[in-house]
């Protein structure tokens, strides 16, 4: 091969870049997060149910929050009727966080895993947690 002195280091850099995700994660066992539901508000519920089904909430809760925000701030409408027929007040702090008052072990456990940092808490007040 011609210019092996340049091509081979180039190929080594290429290999280092493409295999980076493999050796970066080597030996690190990062478990899938298990959001905790052990808050007083949820313990008191007769049926342990969210505003929508669990599967829906997992994938769509950010969009739901956005709809809530638009409905409240733009249209002044703050009653949400879930698909189970129950009524909820559309509020991040007073509804979601009332039940999920364990933000650190609930919202943040997932968000840390997928590395999202919702900026909502720049303004909205996170529930006070005794633990941690």
């Amino acid at each position, binding site marked *: *091969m011609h210019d092996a002195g340049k091509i081979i280091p180039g190929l080594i850099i290429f290999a280092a870049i493409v295999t980076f995700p*493999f050796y970066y*994660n080597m030996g690190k066992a990062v478990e899938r997060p298990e959001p905790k539901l052990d808050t007083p508000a949820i313990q008191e519920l007769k049926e342990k149910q969210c505003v929508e089904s669990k599967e829906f909430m997992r994938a769509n809760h950010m969009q739901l929050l956005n709809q809530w925000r638009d409905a409240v701030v733009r249209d002044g409408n703050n009653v949400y009727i879930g698909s189970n027929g129950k009524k909820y007040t559309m509020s991040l702090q007073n509804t979601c966080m009332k039940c999920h008052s364990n933000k650190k072990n609930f919202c943040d456990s997932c968000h840390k895993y997928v590395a*999202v940092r919702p900026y909502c808490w720049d303004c909205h007040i996170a529930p006070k947690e005794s633990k941690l």
Partner: protein
Amino acid sequence: MGAIVAFIAVIILVLIVLAGTGAANLHFLLGVIIPYLTFVTFTIGVAYRVVKWGRSPVPFRIPTTAGQQKSLSWIKDSKLDNPSTTTGVIGRMGLEVLLFRSLFRNTSSKLYNGSIFAHKWEKWLWMGSLAFHWSFLIVLIRHFRLFMAPVPSLLHLIEAFDGFLQIGSPGIFVSGIILLGAVSYLLFRRFYIPQVRYISLTSDYFPLFLIIGIALSGILMRYFIKVDVVSAKELIMGLLTFKPIIPKGIGVIFYIHLFLVCALFAYFPFSKLMHMAGVFLSPTRNLANNSRMKRHVNPWNYPVKVHTYEEYEEDFRGKMKTAKIPVEKE
């Protein structure tokens, strides 16, 4: 014609996934086996192509790149466009790779008033491809939040800049939108300009449609047809730590996105996309023009048997003297 074949090919790829995740239940194939095979094909394929290129000798420095070459001290040379030193070559290569400098010089030629032939600046292709490649890179880097645990804070910084519009939730990332816009422009250009359409082949259209498919499925997945991203990351981390698992209930759109990405990377070593590695091996970009200072011997020269004048005279000196032909040595 080429465009239609390429378009149908991408549609077939999507249909394969729909069939595979639907009735056939081939999630393990689509989510684990194909990504691994793709990785191997891509890495080995690219290395193989580069080594193959490295085997063909490049004999001469190419002095005819744009810019004045270094010659006499009172002629100003162009240090970046026609460099005579390694530093200059690195500068030229850097500008080429990061800013597509040679594309910046693109011109279009046209007849004006039916008879005046003129060249004109043509910056759209340069702008379109710069927007496309940079947004592609940023999107790819941002994806590393799904490929790494823990995620370094540099990625959060990039996300903060990319998501500065803070529209909606999940917030819009500008680079994803620019990616789709720019790649669509590059496709539109091939349809719109007759000369470009004439020279476009299936192998030009296929990567474009594939990347449009990838960007579109990604954008659909993030903003419209939501998937459970926690499970998606679980699948990806399983692949990266060689403990593959298929979490239940990730939407089909994720498998479509993943399969199209696999198709792109598996196709990569066999395609024009190899220009990613090829740019570094371009003789007009990577060779310093120092032909006036250094002797470059043709690498495929074989030893030629020569008969020098001295040897000739040695052989025939007697006869030459008799014939009164002047000789150098008496």
